[in-house]
């Protein structure tokens, strides 16, 4: 398995993760839900993983308060 740098967004609850997934589908943002990597001290068991080069696309999600309470990471996975 070759590691690659990813954008990882965590959430404070499963409901928040579901809201993010719904938002990303609606706004055609890339990525999918994955288990939270153990290298992150996460609150929710799932996180959003997206290509690192798509980082700027998620500014709209931040502006719309969809990732409130969550954190952004750049991780080799």
């Amino acid at each position: 398995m070759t590691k690659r740098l990813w954008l990882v967004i965590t959430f404070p609850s499963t409901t928040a993760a579901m809201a993010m997934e719904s938002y990303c589908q609606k706004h055609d943002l890339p990525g999918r839900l994955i288990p939270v990597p153990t290298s992150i001290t996460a609150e929710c068991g799932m996180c959003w993983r997206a290509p690192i080069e798509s980082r700027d696309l998620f500014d709209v999600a931040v502006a719309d308060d969809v990732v409130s309470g969550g954190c952004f990471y750049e991780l080799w996975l």
Partner: protein
Amino acid sequence: MIYLDNAATTVRKPDTVAEAMVKALQGWGNSSRGVHDTSLQAARGIYSARCKAAAFFGCRRPDHVAFASNITESLNVAISGLLRPGDRAITTALEHNSVLRPLYRLQDEQRLDLAIVPADSQGCLDYKSLEEALRQETKAVICTHASNLTGNVVDLRRVSELAHKSGALLIADCAQTAGTRPVDMEDLGIDVLCFTGHKGLLGPQGTGGLCAREGLNWRPFKVGGTGVQSYSRTQPQLMPTVLEAGTLNGPGIAGLSAALDYISSVGLDKIAQRESELTQRFYSGVRDIQGVTVYGDFSRERAAVVALNIADLDSGAVADVLAEDYGIAVRAGAHCAPLMHKALGTQERGAVRFSFSWFTEDAEIDAAVLAVREIAERT
């Protein structure tokens, strides 16, 4: 069987409810317990139901909808979760034991200062007494939207205005109104709206929940597994996780979600109008029968419930004759509403309650009226 016990639970449901439940039973994993497809299907389905419930009840945020197994649990969660030892709370004589018993327990065990606003002989709330009771510092008013015995609807907007003027929260028991008339927490000023899924909402038993406004300080009624913050000794404080320890009833919530779709497709106003017509049809048919006493105020808006007694007959005996001789299912007895029966003067023999739903037919109402007439004439 003519089923007229819809205030207890609705039996006729949209076909899509059972279909959605079977699909969930056969395909959903455990929401928030994994990120594989079956778990995500459950999480997505439950999130979708949250969004629908939030829109349905005028709750600003889907994540402030917390599911429960029924409205008794919702009310326990709200009452035990928001009241603290020594607080003052106000409730009414219209309430079901799902409100009264949690409050009595706090009164007995945690020094809750509890005031109970009376009702008149028609079962109507005494708003003046409520206003007077609110003069002292009060944490919350816990009030039904409609009596499960008389069907009288409480003016919750008026109650919330009085409560908020005194800095108190309004916790509303919407067991008899959710799904049968528009109930909007913003419009009515409700701080915590408790609902059940299996009555007017036409969903399955084992479902219910609450919608909460933002900023409330919850002490969860139950704590445990959440799928998040597993190394924390305490329950996560974020809504809805704070109120949802343990595995959620995925198949039930799937059914509730389908029921919400059905009601939205029909239209709440249309359902309310139909249930009002059914209630008036029955009331008009029985009110002048000699020996029949009907309880409640029929001059104002009401839920689709009519309670009555026939002469001096025991309410249970009347219900049994209706079931055995006429094939009509109704509810007799105390209806878990002891203070309401006291106000009506019916605590000794209870009352016979007929309650209707969107699926009740005119012919069923007419058959019930005829049955009441025949029983009264034989007495």
